[in-house]
């Protein structure tokens, strides 16, 4: 119960949330105040950059964090490391989907079609497939430790191809020239003035939001783990009851009444 009590919001945290909401509102208004970019087909849609660019940056950081926590899990066998890995990879997948969604809208607005077969778009779609593979593998195992171990192994195996797809592939000489997608806009200083300021603000805000949600996800996972370990309950996170748990269930007859004693008033789930 102590753990559950500590999950209640404190006055300080409420004030911080209010401050965060106010700053976010201000940055959104500020982003609409910057000049449009006349070189864009739809100049006002250049502002999508402010919310598109933080997404792949955060998604790739979370992918690395997920792999690192998976490696720590394999070394320590501490299920809390697995929780941190799954929190990072779930959020990473969310940011990857947002990257794809905002990129597709941008593609339509700037290049005239929803999908351009652009190498950068395709490579990020593959990163999304890698994330999906992780969750498919995780879902295929029922037992918690095996689920955690196998998915940790996959997260580690996936980090090399994922980093190749994010950082190397779009910059290969024959790919970079063929892509419509800019790869050096930040590094070559093409984003300047108020665009650079708003972009810095959105990256900072999105990062804060990510850390916040990441911590909440870990907290939820810890509570699930606690419930699983102490009570042997099945949890929405996919945890099944440990082996050798005998759990009473009520058996009703055809009329909905409890079966008579002696004919088996209780049955057991799971084998001893």
């Amino acid at each position, binding site marked *: 119960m102590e753990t559950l009590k500590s999950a209640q919001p404190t006055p300080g945290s409420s004030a911080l949330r209010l401050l965060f909401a106010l700053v976010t509102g201000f940055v959104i208004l500020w982003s609409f105040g910057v000049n449009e970019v006349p070189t864009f087909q739809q100049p006002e849609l250049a502002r999508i950059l402010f919310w598109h660019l933080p997404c792949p940056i955060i998604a790739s950081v979370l992918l690395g964090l997920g792999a690192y926590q998976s490696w720590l899990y394999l070394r320590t066998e501490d299920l809390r490391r697995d929780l941190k890995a799954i929190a990072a990879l779930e959020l990473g997948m969310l940011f990857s989907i947002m990257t794809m969604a905002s990129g597709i809208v941008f593609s339509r607005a700037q290049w005239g079609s929803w999908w351009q077969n652009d190498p950068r778009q395709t490579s990020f779609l593959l990163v999304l497939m890698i994330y999906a593979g992780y969750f498919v593998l995780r879902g295929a195992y029922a037992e918690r430790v095996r689920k955690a171990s196998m998915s940790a192994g*996959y997260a580690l195996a996936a980090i*090399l191809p994922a980093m190749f797809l994010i950082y190397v592939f779009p910059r290969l000489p024959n790919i970079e020239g063929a892509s419509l997608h800019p790869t050096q806009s930040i590094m070559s200083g093409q984003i300047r003035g108020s665009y650079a300021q708003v972009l810095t603000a959105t990256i900072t805000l999105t990062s804060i939001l990510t850390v916040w949600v990441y911590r909440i996800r870990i907290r939820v996972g810890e509570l699930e783990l606690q419930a699983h370990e102490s009570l042997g309950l099945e949890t929405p996170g996919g945890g099944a009851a440990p082996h050798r748990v005998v759990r009473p269930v009520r058996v009703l007859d055809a009329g909905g009444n409890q079966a008579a004693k002696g004919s088996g008033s209780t049955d057991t789930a799971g084998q001893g």
Partner: protein
Amino acid sequence: MTPAQWRRQIGAMLRKEIRSEIRSPHGLLTGGLFGLLSVVAIMFAAFNMRLTPTLAAGLLWVIFLFSGVAAIPRSFIGEEENGTADLLRVTANPFSVFWGKSIFNAALTLITAAVLTGLFLVVMNLQVAYPGLMVASVLGGGLALSGAVTLCGALAARAASRQALAGAIALPLVIPVAVWGVTSLRVALGESGYEVGRGAAVGLIAYGVASNAVGPYIYAALWKR
């Protein structure tokens, strides 16, 4: 372990795989038939077309990927299905098990790839401009595919619907291999500069070495869980 002990253990694992394959040639038949049918399907689809090197390289790599993904995971999945995996866990070293199976899978992939490449070149009437580059591309591709897909087979071996799962989780990991593979093959078939193709073949071999070097460590960390 001494180098001689490593050789003995990996050799024993490799011999076991070869004997199992001779007794029941599941991997060779699955991969070979899958690849052969893909070639025949492409023959039907392109009966009046002359394929460009880029398109031919892309199609050939799609065949490699899918025949590899269909055949390679079998080496670990078969152990679980036959109930011999626990015996391996008790008696063998995980590194020897992984390398033994990965070497066997690389050989299987290379045999399948060599036959399918030859057949594809003949039926599609394609000329090879750089035979050495083509050999390097197929060799590197076989090595990279075997390392990555063997590991995915091991990860999926104890799950439900393991064969389909192994394929589904392996494909995203081997697409980068296909990127390099297509680049090197299309140069070998006469498109673009030789330097680009050589770089891609080196990338393939590097990926193969990396996946075969990292794979056993990941496998060793989870093979008894």
